[in-house]
């Protein structure tokens, strides 16, 4: 027997392709532009969002019937804030350097529109298990784009991957740098992240043409 029913696995797989939160719904762009200059930061950010969305969706789903609808936004914000603080403290305790690179952006997960969007659109109306899958799926869809953008930006912008030099040493002029290669400084600026996301959207829509609106 399959681990997940067909309906449930759709919750995970859809956000990875045809309903991607970044490339299709165009949500969560701000953090995708801000922290993707390095692959490591992108991955850590993705894990943080994965945790917040997975847990948050479950919590919201569990209390969905007892929260009055007029104060639901405040309740949602409290849930996200609590989870974000947990992530922030864990990062500060176990990965201090990285938490400095991510700086305010961990705190700003709270403003990540994908999370609030899923709370509102899904967790408020579905059972905990399905909400959990939905949260994980959307976080993975977000993570996929972040990692792709982070990969290209770090590779072309700094010539490294996860901090390890790929093309040789830029200061000692070894490897490709000896031939005159130089890192593309534009890649480290946010506009280029927007262009990379744009190119991903372009490729995705030309592959699956049913996504193109008239």
């Amino acid at each position, binding site marked *: 027997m399959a681990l997940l029913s067909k309906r449930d696995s759709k919750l995970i797989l859809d956000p990875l392709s045809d309903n991607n939160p970044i490339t299709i719904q165009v949500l969560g762009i701000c953090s995708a532009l801000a922290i993707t200059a390095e692959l490591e930061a992108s991955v850590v950010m993705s894990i943080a969002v994965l945790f917040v969305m997975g847990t948050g969706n479950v919590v919201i789903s569990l209390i969905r019937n007892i929260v009055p609808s007029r104060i639901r936004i405040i309740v949602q914000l409290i849930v996200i804030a609590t989870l974000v603080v947990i992530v922030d403290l864990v990062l500060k305790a176990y990965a201090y350097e990285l938490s400095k690179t991510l700086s305010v952006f961990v705190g700003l997960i709270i403003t990540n529109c994908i999370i609030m969007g899923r709370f509102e659109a899904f967790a408020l109306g579905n059972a905990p298990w399905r909400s959990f899958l939905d949260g994980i799926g959307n976080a993975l869809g977000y993570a996929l784009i972040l990692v792709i953008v982070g990969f290209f930006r770090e590779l072309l912008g700094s010539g490294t991957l996860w901090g390890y030099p790929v093309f040789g040493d830029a200061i000692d002029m070894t490897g490709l740098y000896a031939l*005159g*290669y*130089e890192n*593309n*400084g*534009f*890649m480290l600026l946010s*506009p280029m992240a927007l*262009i990379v996301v*744009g190119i991903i959207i372009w490729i995705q829509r030309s592959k699956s043409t049913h996504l193109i609106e008239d």
Partner: protein
Amino acid sequence: MEIKSSLHQLKEKFKGNTFAPAFNAFHTFLYTPNDVTKGGTHIKVADDLKRTMNMVILSLVPCLLFGIFNTGYQHFAAVDAANGIIREASFLGNFITWENFLLGSTKVLPLVIVSYVVGLTVEFIFAVIKGHEVEEGYLVTGMLVPLIVPVDLPLWMLTVAVIFGVIIGKEIFGGTGMNILNPALTIRAFLFFAYPTWMSGDKVWVHGAVERTGTAEAISGETILGSYAQNQEIIYSLSDMFIGFIPGSVGETSKILIILGALFLIFTKIGSWRIMLSTIAGALFMGLIFNQVVDLGWITETSNFYGLMSVPFWEHLLIGSILFGAVFMATDPVTAAQTLKGKWIYGFLIGFISIMIRVFNPGYPEGVFLAILLMNVFAPTIDHYVIESNVKKRLNRIKLKTA
């Protein structure tokens, strides 16, 4: 059989082939095709897109030739200066010389060739994928690009930038005529932000200055703008600036040739004189404001901006690339404002912002390309409001009549 008819037969033979657009591009570049429209009334004018583009290229050729000689001249002048010999520029004496031409062409022609080959390759690939005809837009862009980059720019960087500029600046919008940003300036902006060490500073503007850095034969490549920004003495005379015996991007130095090009474009009705004039007016206006600020004593010589602010307002036109931008970049018919009133506003703001960036941010070696790109983005908005106000005016007229 004549070449023309045999080409036509070749075309018929390969109709529908994947590479038909590529063939057609070369075909129509040299010959008028045999196919003509049938039925209905058609007015045929001589100035199609291809001819328009060729006229712009013609007006750029003097700048290119001058740039070739100037590249050589600046190099040898800088070498002389490093040895303590001060050169007096004379057009026939030490400018139009064989050695200047030889050195200049080995540096400038590769830029031209790379620009055209890479850019047209991208255009051909897109034409073949999309199955439409190759557009002529790149003919001018390809000529502009080598004229607005420093001469020592590594060719692979130019390649990357041209691919980026043509795809992101033009093709994703739908090709020639649909682009929001001027492709040539997109290429320059990409180069500037991606490889700032090759696009700014006091070394890149004269051939050889970069590779000789730190050696006993080091030479300077400082531009006039750079010297002003650091409050240094200017060693070039006004006539040098006007004729163009100064360091700078390849084709932007000779103001007189740019003015001749401008007159040619205005005479052939290809370039908009409104945009050229209003850009210059905007630049002069901003220059006057800065002069006033200096005259009133609001800033003193200790200020970082003093050097550039105290430049006489008219001299701003002689240094940097404001004239080149006004004549060849701002007037791009695709990205400029379309309405007549809009053209005045668009040009004025380009000049105004150019000088503002030039003075307030000496870190950007030249604000003209940023100002034009910014106004490219705003051009549709300007047009929108000009049209809206016209509509309003006419509605009022109706009201007056009926009332």
